[in-house]
């Protein structure tokens, strides 16, 4: 995880430096704000990694780890299918088209979302 943290911190440092240099060279507010928000966003991720993941010890990061090290009994079941993604896509499209075309399209989208909700409730039983 150290590499990942280095990645986010150095990116934040980089955008911070460029943003500061940009303000003093150009005094242009839009670009400065954008670079500033960028730096803040990267620092948020870095902060999470420092405080929440500091004790992470992945088998992946050990140079001499072997597959049996990480093996265990039932680790989990991989989901290979789900109706949710397609219906979320349909629903979101309906909502977005609603902004453009008519509220009726948004209505279709909302109905699709409700259908999806019902489907997921039924499936989880």
């Amino acid at each position, binding site marked *: 995880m150290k590499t990942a943290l280095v990645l986010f911190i150095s990116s934040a440092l980089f955008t911070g430096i460029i943003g500061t240099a940009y303000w003093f060279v150009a005094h242009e507010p839009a670009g400065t704000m954008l670079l500033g928000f960028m730096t803040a966003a990267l620092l948020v991720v870095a902060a999470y990694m420092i405080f929440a993941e500091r004790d992470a010890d992945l088998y992946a990061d050990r140079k001499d780890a072997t597959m049996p090290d990480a093996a265990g009994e039932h680790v989990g079941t991989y989901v290979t299918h*789900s109706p949710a993604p397609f219906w979320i896509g349909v629903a979101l499209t309906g909502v977005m088209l609603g902004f453009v075309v008519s509220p009726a399209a948004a209505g279709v989208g909302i109905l699709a979302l409700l259908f999806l909700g019902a489907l997921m409730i039924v499936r989880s039983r």
Partner: protein
Amino acid sequence: MSAIAEPRVTAPERHDILSWITTTDHKRIGVLYMATTLMFMAVAGLLAVAIRTQLARPGSELISPHGYNQIFTLHGTAMIFLVIAPFALGLANYLVPLQVGAPDMAFPRLNATSYWMFLFGGLTVFAGAASNEGAASAGWTSYAPLSEITISTGLGQDFWIVGLAMVSVASIMTAVNFVTTTFIHRAPGMTMWRIPIFTWEMVATSLLIFMAFPSLTATLLLLFVDRRLGGHVFDPSFGGSPILYQHLFWFFGHPEVYVLILPYFGVVSEVISTFSGRPLFGYTGMVLAAFAIAGLSMGVWAHHMFTTGAVNNPFFAFVSFLIAVPTGIKFFNWICTMWGGSIRYTAAMLYAVGFLMNFLLGGVTGVMVASPPLDFQAQDSYFVVAHFHYTIGGGSMFALFAAIYYWWPKIYGWRLDERLGKINFWLTFVGFNVTFLPMFFMGVFGMPRRIYTYSGEGALPLLNLVATAGAYLMLLAAVVFVANIVISARRRDPAGDNPWHGYTLEWATSSPPPEHNFHRLPPIRSARPLFNIEHPEADQS
């Protein structure tokens, strides 16, 4: 050492249409992405042939001005947002879990949702063509005030905005998936500095997507507010600023072009390494260069605004020049990978070398237009059109085909015909250069972009005719490509696990891989696990 339990397959793999619509398997989603982008590429390619046909002769009346404006808008929008970028995301979807030894992406359902949002968003953009005044026609950059409601009065522009907003959010979600998968779901022993270069490039690409796409989403939203919700953000008659639009758009727009190239740098690295029989030269330098390019690309956006007189040209010229350095590092590393190798010229390798030749010209002309005084002539002319087609077309698109020829046997278990592949390559390479090389001169001679016709004086008529001839050659190349797929599909020449003798993990499983990717993973002791198995005495890192 405890034995590993065999994965317990609870249900056989399904192949019906419903199983494709509800799939969350990264391999299927990758195939869906890539197939969809190839469809969009066919459409966008035909739009390009229409453009070139219209411009073959001065004063041609084949296509109306309004029709032409829709055509080039859709061509650019589709090629950038619906072909080059999502093909890379689809390829990465397929490859990244395999390359890091994971059974799937970190968030499989989010992955599938991204695909459907991309598909529906793309269709929405094109659906604008059926609206009252046709599709969006303000260019893929959609500058305000041209794209404001008072000037672009039709619904097509709104379809464009809404469709791209969906594609934008889908891309961000996919980037989250890639980064999480790469950080958390690597197999034991697969340290970050042992992951394949393609996966590293996808991490850099994902970082760029995080940093750039939110600006696009915000810009689209603001444009929509101006158009349909009574806003005046970009309307100067109420105190708004067209220059602000350009800042916001290009803050996204420039990193976007690096999103369009970094994955393909990864493809080229993998292909050249495998077919030279040598490891990628300077792996560490390549990774650092990728992040240098990504980082620097955040600070160059206003080089698209040099002619406005509204930005600090020297700042942006300086940072733009700097990007040439890590790009050069990559070129030298590729050459050194080939150096001393024993190069097998398959169709994939030909496309990779074609990439090097084309992208070099794109790159050096990029340094040219990074110089503001030069850009005063080149901006918004065919010089820039030539530059970006050499990088995105001659670069990314060539690598896209290299990727198809290289990984097709892994995905389907059978090969594409190599001889047809080579014919396809040469037609594409010659056609591409015949089309775009004249455009550098057309720009210097004063031909602006985005014009539906031009007058018959000077050198422009001949140069345009030559360019159109090249476009038809590329059309022929595309026909050969499709024929290759059809003919090879009938033959189904079995490929085996590792037809190209590659050394990364995707070649350590069957072709196609099982649903959970690996029955058994080899031990991972370096960036080339299969090489270590072949050469147990060699140095490990």
